[in-house]
């Protein structure tokens, strides 16, 4: 009799344990904190270390365009370097970002010059902090997450993740990130100044499987009420994980980025 009771108890414990283990991930997903959401977004947008090719297009109100092609390397949360491959007038230029530091290397000038996140090495709506995008968590704290009335194609409500800049040196004071809960990727980011003014809106489009577990938007577009009629687009290609030495992200290495292609 006792052995039968013990057997039933053991069976019940197993069922309860199995049930608990089964629902833990769902519970965690449902209760994911804003910071955890931010980390998930960063990981889905960027592998820890990778290389990629990007085409940046600036479209003017009259429809004319300027195009730039960049080879980009990223390591950790806040090391990025980009080498201009095109047009011929920009070829060989390199921009490096290490945390809050940014430099521009111009072959004819020959030494890295400090630049700021608010400038733009390419002109157009994207500034240097957009072009040398580091992980959002390196620059922003996640404040809150909430459901919005907008829905994704499968009918689920989009989430809005509110971010606040960690320091005054960051290009935008606040970000409002609209997230597709299925893709766990941003669809739209509104960049807002400390005055509350909307600086620009960034759209993430065309989800693409780049292989090796990297699935992310392949097109990022932006427009701005400050630049009416202007549009800038970044198209991603050949994103792949790559192990890099930390020394690559130093000013003395900027004229040798080409050797890593």
């Amino acid at each position, binding site marked *: 009799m006792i052995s039968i009771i013990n057997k039933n108890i053991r069976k019940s414990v197993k069922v309860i344990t199995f049930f608990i283990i089964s629902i833990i991930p769902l519970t965690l997903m449902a209760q994911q904190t804003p910071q955890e959401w931010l980390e998930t977004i960063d990981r889905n947008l960027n592998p820890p270390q990778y290389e990629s090719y990007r085409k940046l297009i600036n479209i003017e109100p009259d429809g004319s365009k300027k195009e730039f092609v960049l080879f980009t390397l990223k390591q950790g949360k806040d090391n990025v370097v980009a080498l201009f491959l095109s047009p011929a007038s920009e070829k060989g230029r390199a921009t490096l970002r290490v945390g809050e530091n940014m430099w521009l290397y111009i072959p*004819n000038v020959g030494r890295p010059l*400090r630049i700021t996140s608010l400038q733009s090495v390419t*002109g157009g709506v994207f500034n240097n902090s957009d072009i040398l995008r580091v992980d959002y968590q390196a620059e922003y704290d996640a404040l809150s997450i909430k459901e919005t009335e907008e829905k994704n194609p499968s009918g689920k409500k989009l989430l809005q993740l509110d971010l606040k800049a960690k320091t005054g040196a960051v290009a935008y004071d606040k970000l409002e990130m609209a997230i597709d809960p299925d893709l766990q990727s941003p669809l739209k980011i509104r960049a807002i100044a400390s005055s509350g003014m909307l600086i620009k809106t960034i759209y993430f489009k065309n989800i693409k499987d780049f292989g090796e577990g990297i699935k992310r938007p392949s097109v990022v577009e932006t427009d701005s009420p400050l630049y009416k009629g202007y549009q800038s687009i970044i198209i991603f290609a050949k994103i792949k994980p790559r192990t890099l030495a930390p020394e690559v992200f130093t000013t003395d290495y900027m004229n040798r980025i080409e*050797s890593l292609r």
Partner: protein
Amino acid sequence: MKHGLLLGVLMGLFFITVSADKAFAQDKDLYSFNVEEFEKKSWEWSGEFRLLGTNKTYNKNSVLHPLKFPDDEIDQSQEVELQLYLESRWDWDWSRFFVSGEASVIRSSLEENDDETSFLSEGYLQLNLFDPQSFEIGKRLLRWGKGYAFNPVALMERVKNPEDPEASREGLWITQGILIPGGFSIFENTSVTLVYLPIREEINEDYQTRYEYDNVWGMKLYGLIGTTDFDLYLVEWTETSETDLGIDFATNITPSFEVHGELAVFDTTESTEQQTLIGLRYLTENEITLIVEGFNDSSGLTYNESKELYQLIEVSPADKAKPYLSQIQQKKTLNRNYGYLKISIKEPFDWLYFTPSFTWLGNLDDRSSSNALQLVYAPSDNLSYQLVLQYLEGEKYSQFGENTVKNKVELSASYDF
């Protein structure tokens, strides 16, 4: 007249040719990105073609005017210049060979201004067997320092011209090793550069012409702490017992406000001189960039010394005036204190791809200055037009007041390929 017509025709052809390139680019599919086009090639080359037309008005009141034009009362000249810059690189495994050079032809309304020049800017072999450490041998332009118009710590290169800081310069034959230990302790990044520069009869013989034979050893230590770059320099001229020391820094006080500075000390058996630079770069909210620099050279002439030189030139016959002239022309700066200001405005009045800028270079000792208005228009990816209006002013016996050219108008078109 002949030159004006030639210039007009060439510029017209140039504009038509490159405008077609822009129109073609607009027809491409917006999201197309054929990344295969940008696969790395082991050999690549690129270049820039530049056509310039210049009108110079000479300063007939200058004491230097009779030396430049002994026979004629020349007050103007027109020049057409063609410049071609080419560079090429070969990459294989862990090595690279890089070469770049420039050639130019000037034809002027004054025959004595006609010129044809060409030089090898750089040509070196880079070995990266132990990447990220590298070793280079050949002709190289080091470009040390943080300043824009002045670089006191450019201890192993030809001095840049503050009137045209971005002008091409010729490198020197050197051997250099770059070690990148990376970050440690309070340093987020570090590097060590060791350089050897020989001076012989046929190698670097025109560099620092006071020395005919020497071995120059240089070391640069770089560190990044927080948002500040630091460099320390030590250069030793072994045969002539000269030691040069330097330090520089650049930091961002705010995202749009950068400060930089340089100090170099030149210690020889005869004297100890120093050069100092302090500067800033500020970007306003409406994208106006300001560059301000102040420069001091303790070995420069005082106002009275330079005034005396100009007076000696004025009263001396041409053959006797030449040593005084060479004393004036031996350095890019003549006196001790200079100021530099550059204001550039990005696309004012929503005029796309148009960047006007104004540059003031002032000799603070004799209160003379060089003032230049520059208008740059870059309507398509590889094409740009530039108009420069330069005006020099100053009293008699001052550096810019005695310059042989009083003002200059220069129109140019550049095409990169």
